[in-house]
């Protein structure tokens, strides 16, 4: 019967389509920068010394965007302190402040210690260049300056950090 055929033709694809849709998470966005050269930047740290990304060629770089009001970032702080101690020169750790006040950052680091270099990003231009949605977000850049991964969740423990680096052949 025509009605049955038309009805089936309309119903079944719709249900299948929505079922497929169920398996995707619309909040999970992949970064288009993966596999591309990392956007260059020249940012000043808290003492005013400029750090240029291209000067760091030859060593992998971990770029972490964070802020003091972000609770998971606070947890991540310990991870990076440990990570720096263990990895030493094998990985450059850079933190970029995202929409926060420098005075609060100074107080935070003064209390808990500083890892790597902490860079100030006026106008969030570097955050925009990297496609940052929120904090914490961490980018992994290899020795040739190519972005090899981005994660948008906190590295809550050092083990998480080493596991992630190990995935890309960068640790130990």
């Amino acid at each position, binding site marked *: 019967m025509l009605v049955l055929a038309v009805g089936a033709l309309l119903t079944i694809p*719709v*249900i299948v389509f*929505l079922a497929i849709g169920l398996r995707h998470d619309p*909040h999970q966005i992949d970064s288009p920068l993966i596999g591309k050269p990392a956007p260059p930047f020249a940012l000043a740290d808290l003492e005013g010394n400029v750090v240029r990304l291209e000067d760091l060629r030859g060593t992998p770089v971990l770029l972490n965007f964070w802020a003091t009001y*972000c609770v998971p970032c606070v947890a991540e702080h310990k991870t990076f302190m440990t990570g720096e101690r263990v990895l030493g020169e094998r990985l450059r750790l850079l933190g970029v402040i995202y929409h926060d006040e420098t005075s609060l950052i100074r107080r935070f680091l003064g209390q808990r210690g500083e890892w790597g270099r902490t860079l100030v990003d006026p106008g969030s231009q570097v955050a925009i260049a990297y496609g940052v949605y929120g904090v914490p977000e961490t980018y992994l850049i290899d020795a040739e300056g190519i972005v090899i991964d981005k994660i948008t969740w906190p590295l809550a423990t050092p083990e998480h950090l080493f596991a992630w680096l190990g995935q890309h052949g960068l640790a130990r």
Partner: protein
Amino acid sequence: MISYLGQGLVLLALVVCAVGAPVGFVAGARRSPEGLRLARGLALAFAALMVLANLAMEWALLTHDFSVKYVALVGSTATPTHITIVSLWSSLEGSILFWGLVLGLYTAGVAILQRRGHEDYLAYTLGTILSVGVFFTYLIAGPADPFGLLDPAPADGPGPNPLLQNHALMIVHPPMLYLGYVGMTVPFAMAVAALLRGQLGPTWLRPLRNWLLVPTAFLTMGVMLGGWWSYEVLGWGGYWAWDPVENASFLPWLTAIAAVHSAIVLQRRGTLKAWTVILVMITFLLTILGTFLTRSGVVNSVHSFTQSPIGPVFLAFLGVTMIAVVVLLAMRVDTLTTEPARETLVAREGAFLLNNLLFVAFMLTVLVGTLFPIAAEAVRGTKVSVGEPWFNRMSVPISFGLLLLIGIGPALPWGRSDGAALRRALLWPLPAALAGLGLTWLLGGRAGPVLLTGALAGYALWVTVDHGLRPTRTRMKKGEGPAQAFGTSFRRAPRLIGGYLTHFGVIVTFVAIAVSSSFQTSGEGVLSLGSGSLAVGGYELTLDDVGVVEEPHRTVRQAEVAVARGGRALGTLAPSLNHYDTQREPIGTPAVRTSLTHDLYLTLMNVRGDGTVGLRAIVTPAVLWIWIGVFIMTAGTGLCLLSPRPARVPAVSRAAALDGAEAAS
């Protein structure tokens, strides 16, 4: 204790529905009065159980019984009482429970109010509604259980979403929306009953049409209140962003309006029966689809929750219902096609057909736009957004088509007529179109769309007022005074007056939307105490005061902004930033100064430690008229529920008398 009570009530309701559904269907098939009595009883029992379950949840909320899962989720001792009452529908599980309540109330309404005649239809209807009830009670009892017991019970809870605590509209918008949304189950059930019974005649068409009008009126208000709430609370200065949850409420509204118009034609001319039935069924399916979209996390939305277990269940229900509808239509296709195809492209029937086409096309457009991100991801693996720019571009032409039809449709006569009469009918309101165009030009409109709106609105307004008052004028020519003429006309044909009043409301809303989106001005600036001022749209804004107010559940940073216009002080507005203990980012509450001509809309962008504030000001004309216009639409829709006099006539001949009166008016 309440946990067990609530869960027990819901499980009992599930059983009642599971028993009542087959009882209803069998009673309908056998045309048995005892079966119908039983089905009615079970329907009322379902309603009572839902009412009790919701009261139990309210009790748990108000007594802050944190051993109940839902209370632990949205309750808080710091929340004000009126917000606590409203938090029943503030989160997923509670809103499904509330859905059950509204469904129960509608079921009781149908069971009680549909007394006279139509026994077998009624039995089928109750059977269908209770089948839907099975699904929802299963949801409440299982995947979306708000009554779960927490042991040990937490000491306090996080309170409802802060966005829902900012405004009084939150109290009205969800119930209104649910009364519309859930109410679509009833005309759906009645259409199913007609198909099962094998007939859809005028005696069952009347209740179907009435039970379609009621949720449509509520849905109209609900959608508008959603936009109004978004405007007053979210702080971005707009009222409609084509967010999936807004679209989810808009889609069934579109097909419901098309169904209402088809029902009019069905009643007066006997055609468009298939359109009416199918549109009513699609409306219900869209309510389920819409709920699925917003509750399953399939699309990115303001309302959406992360993947929850009820997504797949809703999808299964949607699938089953769609299959059932298709099978039913296939089996009963002859019920729908007994009428010869007498529609003609000219004259009013054709206009109604075109109307249906445009509404369905509009609905499909919005649906495609809402669902496309899913398709794009499935096919290309990348995420795309389909947002306001796309929706506006697509919906504006269709809307103009509808505005044109509101003018042309009623101007055209029923049935075929000669070319000269048609030309006369269509050209007669043309001066009004030119007047509208001229007025728009005078008021400063220069862009094409704005001028087109003016012309079409002028035309439509003329036709609407002319036809709406025609019976009155005829009576006045016969010597009656204007008030009496109107009163008699209204009593004899309230639906005519109601219909044209609704159209009038649509025109007002349309014009208001066009004006508000075309002539908006905005500006941003930094103000500090005693210095700095922002000039927008003729207003001068200066900062009077900045303060902090501590409330138990939030910290409010408020700015008092002095508003002046042309040197004259007009008072102060107080936009604020609310920092809730449970949220990282503050939520801004705008301050709005509404007048008949325009709104002044202020939002705080930030409040710095040194007492400077970043302020954004938007001046939008005619916003108030959008809400007023929709209100008029709803009032008109309500009037259409009234029956023309005379009343107090036995059932069968009453139907004939009414239809006779209809054909005469």
